[in-house]
């Protein structure tokens, strides 16, 4: 019963870790798809639009997308529950300089996560919602022209900046999150723990710069400086 109620602090962290790692996996797939935007314009348009059509029509992808929505919501709600408990248990100092003992991003995952949540609302509204629920013109192959939607979204420099800054918030979130999740699941052997540390750093850099370069590239190639 206590397992179902998630009374244990370790169980709650397991949920954070599993949903977090699924989101990490999703980011890789998402980035690989988005890298098509870096192709020359005509090829990029055709390739990106047919890829989007392929994903939205596939039943397997539909199931995965529901796991994705669940992971996002569970990750955020669990984080909130954990944070509320931690606020209650934490000691409060009159003079506090304990920050020197750890990295700031490891202590502020909640703030980074909240920024990412705000980013996701904007991101879903501008692409996911538009693609799914609004009428989008079709390209020459008869696929919805999501490529055009993406290109025009990055016409304004401040929107590009919003994306780039959000990707840095994501980067710091991953820098701590990936390693922390694997730790939570119990990888304790020093050899594998060291590998996970290095892999987590490379992964975080790859995801951050991979995603951040796309809006910059699109803006510069289509709208100049």
């Amino acid at each position, binding site marked *: 019963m206590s*397992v179902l109620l998630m*009374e*244990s*602090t*370790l*169980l*709650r*962290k*397991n949920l954070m870790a599993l949903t977090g790692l699924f989101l990490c996996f999703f980011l890789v797939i998402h980035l690989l798809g988005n890298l098509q935007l870096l192709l020359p314009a005509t090829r990029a348009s055709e390739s990106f639009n047919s890829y989007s059509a392929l994903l939205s029509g596939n039943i397997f992808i539909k199931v995965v997308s529901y796991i994705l929505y669940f992971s996002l919501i569970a990750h955020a709600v669990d984080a909130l529950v*954990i944070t509320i*408990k*931690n606020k*209650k*248990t*934490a*000691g*409060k*100092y*009159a*003079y*506090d*300089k*304990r920050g*020197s*003992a*750890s*990295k700031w991003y*490891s*202590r502020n*995952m909640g703030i980074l996560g909240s920024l990412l949540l705000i980013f996701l609302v904007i991101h879903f509204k501008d692409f996911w919602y538009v693609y799914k629920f609004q009428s989008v013109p079709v390209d020459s192959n008869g696929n919805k022209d999501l490529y055009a939607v993406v290109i025009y979204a990055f016409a304004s420099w401040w929107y590009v900046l919003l994306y780039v800054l959000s990707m840095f918030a994501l980067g710091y979130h991953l820098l*701590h999150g990936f*390693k*922390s999740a694997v*730790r*939570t*699941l*119990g*990888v*304790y052997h*020093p050899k594998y*723990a060291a590998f996970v540390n290095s892999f987590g750093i490379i992964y975080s850099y790859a995801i951050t710069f991979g995603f951040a370069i796309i809006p910059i590239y699109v803006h510069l190639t289509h709208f100049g400086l």
Partner: protein
Amino acid sequence: MKVHLKIWRQKDAASKGRLVDYDLDQVDTHMSFLEMIDTLNEKLVLKGEVPVEFDHDCREGICGMCAMTINGEVNGPVAGLTVCQLHMREFKDNSTIYIEPFRANAFPLKRDLKVDRSAFDRIIQAGGYISASTGQPTEANTILISHDQAESAFDSAACIGCGACVATCKNSSAALFTSAKISHLAKVPQGREEAQKRVLKMVAQMDAEGFGHCSNTEACEARCPQGISVLNIAQMNWEYNKALVLR
């Protein structure tokens, strides 16, 4: 040297505490931090004031009794020390030093710098032992263990239960202490027998005492006087998840 102290004074858990200013002159740089407070206390007693209460015992860095937050950092400016091993030469002449007790919801304050860390004892009582028949000691080599494994278990067993991990943690999590005690026994054959039962009971007790979640910030390892590794926490998670599935 001369120091300006701002020490947390509080009569008991129910009263309101505050930082009180004390100036102390002719402090020897070779004094330990605790000896500096002893000197202050002698002066307070001569003046008829109530001395500052603080925990201490061996003053050799191995008992885990002395514990306070100095200038906002657990056990003071040098990482990996107990307060008794901290010396006044680490401070500048004429500096202001803030001294506060360890703060955590699960460590209720008793008086001044003294907190009740018996939550740790109850976590140990929940499962930090092995059940073995007493009587004649058996021949040591009947249970074989590799030297590396024995050393690894000893690294975990080195935890002195001082509570610095809890006090430096932003969530006041007891994960490092509890995990060190769990993995110390999980690493030796004698402890494996009850490993699953032990981890479930000790984690349940840790949660019941009102410690927070582990956020893997690793501040605990950075400030631990014994340098206990955070990989103990990962092993606790592993043992816990295994026990959940298998037991």
